[in-house]
């Protein structure tokens, strides 16, 4: 009989906010056995982090446990006072957090922080603790551990900071480790290394782990069981293979479908399509005769300080074609998208659109060029991409006014309504401000604004990176449909290879500002030619039920 290490029964947590009480958890039940890895998967607002904080007794001031029990090692620790929790934290249960650099004391060296963790529960001298800290750094396989011992967090990369966090959390060998979105914000390749280290160390020490993530694929790869959360409740708990093959709950089904996997297509992402399924439209219109729609030749961008962001990049996009630009942070993909959209001047190189060298026109004057309307852009973070003082209507209609010279309140209203319908935005939301819209709705407004002037090339800069998985599925569906309906060309910038594979016929892989590989998407997936591409592909969390030992 496996007595659970931690069991949470019907936990309810409430927050006092400016707008009254908000119920964050409505009766969460889960259990973790010793040595087991439990995944808690959910989208934003599901309450997964709140559950972790409540368990550790780290809820912020405004939060209160209103019902339920938390039992750890047989002891009831629900809303226990600090005197009870402090001996447990770090020694019996510990946590690693989402933003590792922010989670470390910026003015204290890394070695001292690990030593603090050790000395909190063990009677060690400073020198003994420092020596032990060094051993811990070696265990998490940080390079040059002796030097790193005296380093400060701002001198380390995100991945290194997370390794330091791991060594702090594991310093006193707790029985349970809670990992709250430990890899969000890290590069794909770093993600894999961090997860491998965490799993290896927890298995070595026979520790139980709760992995909190929004990425179902990641959970499936590393966890023994997965609990799916939606809006403050656990809707389903099962082992990964059962979850993927026979999801019981409606939400789980949607989530499983929406998580891009190796074989998924855009159509398969959305289970119950609220919009008409993408018609297999006739192939997108092509301009008769002429060369490619977009021809980039030897593009170079240098920033002051000697940084080469874009290093001799050349590629082409045909009319109606979708090209993916893939790379990690620092690869130059965002810079390229800004250069192509003429929001930034290049250092050298040609940008030829529909036969005209638009690179020769400085960005300062491009707004007057007739081709301005043909190249539009959709941004990554919907919260940042809409003017807080404009209603959705204002945002959509501004390019119509500026670029097409349309005017007249009634005419513009009608146009706005058409465009909103095209992107699936309910008409009554047109008069709302961005802060009154959800993430998905804001994304639609951003897309509506971009297609309002019927551009021929749409640049998408990580358009779904900041969205929940289920929302992402719907937005990708929408983008694909729009492309097919109007013969739009896409320049799709992303770090997510799965998404790019689904949305783009061809793709280009960037590393440090230069192209390392390019070709047909599926071909690169099946047979990557370069090491870097192979690394990227291997780093994608994948779930293969048969391969799990």
């Amino acid at each position, binding site marked *: 009989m496996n007595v659970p290490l931690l069991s949470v029964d019907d936990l309810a947590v409430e927050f006092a906010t400016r707008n009254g009480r908000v119920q964050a958890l409505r009766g969460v039940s889960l259990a973790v056995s010793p040595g087991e890895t439990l995944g808690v998967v959910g989208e934003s607002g599901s309450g997964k982090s709140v559950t972790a904080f409540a368990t*550790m007794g*780290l809820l*912020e*001031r405004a939060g209160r446990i209103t019902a339920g029990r938390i039992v750890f090692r047989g002891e009831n620790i629900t809303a226990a006072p*600090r005197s009870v929790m*402090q*001996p*447990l*934290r*770090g*020694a019996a249960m*510990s*946590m690693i*957090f989402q*933003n590792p650099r*922010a*989670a*470390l*004391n*910026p*003015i*204290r060296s890394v070695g001292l922080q690990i030593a*603090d*963790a050790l000395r*909190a*529960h063990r009677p060690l001298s400073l020198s003994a603790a420092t020596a032990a800290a060094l051993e811990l750094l070696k265990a998490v396989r940080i390079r040059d551990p002796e030097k790193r011992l005296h380093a*400060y967090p*701002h001198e380390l990369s995100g991945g290194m900071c997370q390794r330091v*966090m791991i060594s*702090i*959390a594991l*310093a*006193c060998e707790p029985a349970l480790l809670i990992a709250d979105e430990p890899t969000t914000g890290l590069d794909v390749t770093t993600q894999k290394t961090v997860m491998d280290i965490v799993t290896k160390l927890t298995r070595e020490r026979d520790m139980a782990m709760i992995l909190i993530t929004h990425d179902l694929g990641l959970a499936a790869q590393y966890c023994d069981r997965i609990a799916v959360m939606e809006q403050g409740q656990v809707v389903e708990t099962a082992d990964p293979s059962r979850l993927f093959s026979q999801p019981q709950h409606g939400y789980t089904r949607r989530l499983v479908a929406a998580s891009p996997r190796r074989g998924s297509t855009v159509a398969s992402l959305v289970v119950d399509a609220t919009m008409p399924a993408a018609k297999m439209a006739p192939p997108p219109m092509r301009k008769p005769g002429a060369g490619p729609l977009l021809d980039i030749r030897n593009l170079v961008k240098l920033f002051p300080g000697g940084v080469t962001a874009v290093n001799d990049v050349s590629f082409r996009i045909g009319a109606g074609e979708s090209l993916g630009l893939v790379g990690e942070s620092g690869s130059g993909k965002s810079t390229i998208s800004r250069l192509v959209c003429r929001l930034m001047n290049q250092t050298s190189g040609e940008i030829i659109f529909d036969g005209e060298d638009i690179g020769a026109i400085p960005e300062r004057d491009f707004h007057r060029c007739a081709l301005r309307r043909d190249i539009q852009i959709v941004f990554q973070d919907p919260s940042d991409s809409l003017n807080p003082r404009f209603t959705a209507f204002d945002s959509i209609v501004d390019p119509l006014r500026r670029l097409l010279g349309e005017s007249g309140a009634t005419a513009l209203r009608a146009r706005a309504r058409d465009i909103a319908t095209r992107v699936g935005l309910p008409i009554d939301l047109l008069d709302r401000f961005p802060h009154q819209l959800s993430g998905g709705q804001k994304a639609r407004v951003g897309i509506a604004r971009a297609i309002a002037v019927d551009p021929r090339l749409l640049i998408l800069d990580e358009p779904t990176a900041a969205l929940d998985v289920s929302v992402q599925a719907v937005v990708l569906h929408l983008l694909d449909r729009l492309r097919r309906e109007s013969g739009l060309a896409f320049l799709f910038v992303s770090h997510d290879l799965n998404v790019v594979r689904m949305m783009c016929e061809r793709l280009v892989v960037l590393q440090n500002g230069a192209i390392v590989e390019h070709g047909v998407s599926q071909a690169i997936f099946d047979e990557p030619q370069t090491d870097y591409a192979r690394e990227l592909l291997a780093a994608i969390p994948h779930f293969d039920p048969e391969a799990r030992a």
Partner: protein
Amino acid sequence: MKLLTVARRTAWRFASSLPALFGVVIFTFVLMRLLPGDPAVFFASSPSAGKAEIEMIRKQMGLDRSIPEQLVRYLRDIGTGNLGRSMTTGQPVTNDLIRRLPASLELTVTALLIALTLALPAGIFAALRQNSLIDHAIRLLCTLGVCMPTFVSGLLFIFFFYYVLGWAPDPTGRIDIFLSAPPEITGLLLVDSAIAGNGEVFRAALHQLMLPASTMALFVLAPLARMTRASMLAVLTSDFIRTGESIGLSRRRIVLVYALRNALLPVLTITGIVFSTMLGANVLVEKVFSWPGVASYALDALLASDYAPVQGFVLLMASIFVMVNLTIDLLYGLADPRVSIE
């Protein structure tokens, strides 16, 4: 290794404050020489000086030369410490300033110490006991404190502590006229009397100092306490404190080592700004308490249309401020490893 870094940083920071100093000097030049009005008249011996005298002064000041040449002479004068001569005292301005500076410094530094001793604990305490009665009381006092003009509080202090309660001495001067000052080493009465071992003078000087220093301290107490409280609150809700809690650090360690050291960084920065306002507030406090410092010297000169002391005073104050800022920058650089040498 560390010492070398510190030395390099000091040198670099000093070098980068030189442009500001230079700017101050040039700005003062522009102000005093190039603005409408005849500077020679400003610097004449009396407002009704005759044309011949004005002409002589104009020659003396080099006002008949070209502007660049004037600038060079001016820079040379400043460089050699020649700030002109005061009409009202008849002494070189430099000497007057040196003579009266210790009084102002003693006042300002004491006030700063009082303010810091009271404000920092208050702010920290208010942050630790957020939303308690003490917190609300401190916040209320801060809100009111920021609104109170220095000269009014100074006068009201005199009313309560001298007239009503009789605790404070007669608010004129630094020391009771019946006592003689100790041998002058630094010019700071407290220091000099301590060195001379003269307890009576020390106490008398302290007694006189209390009221004006408290007035000035009151002025900056509120913003300091507010800043400390806000900074402490911000730090207490930051991620790394949560990490500290999650690994089971003791409350003492979290507050003193993790929170406080981080929270005091912005307070250090604001102390520089506070010092600047105090240098300005000197004018008001010295006037109210008839304190014989540089500010009252300059003010009296200004009202008597004697402009050389005013120029000297302006240069002096700005230079002190640049130096203080430099020191604070250095301290900050030592305390915060994120600050690069650049």
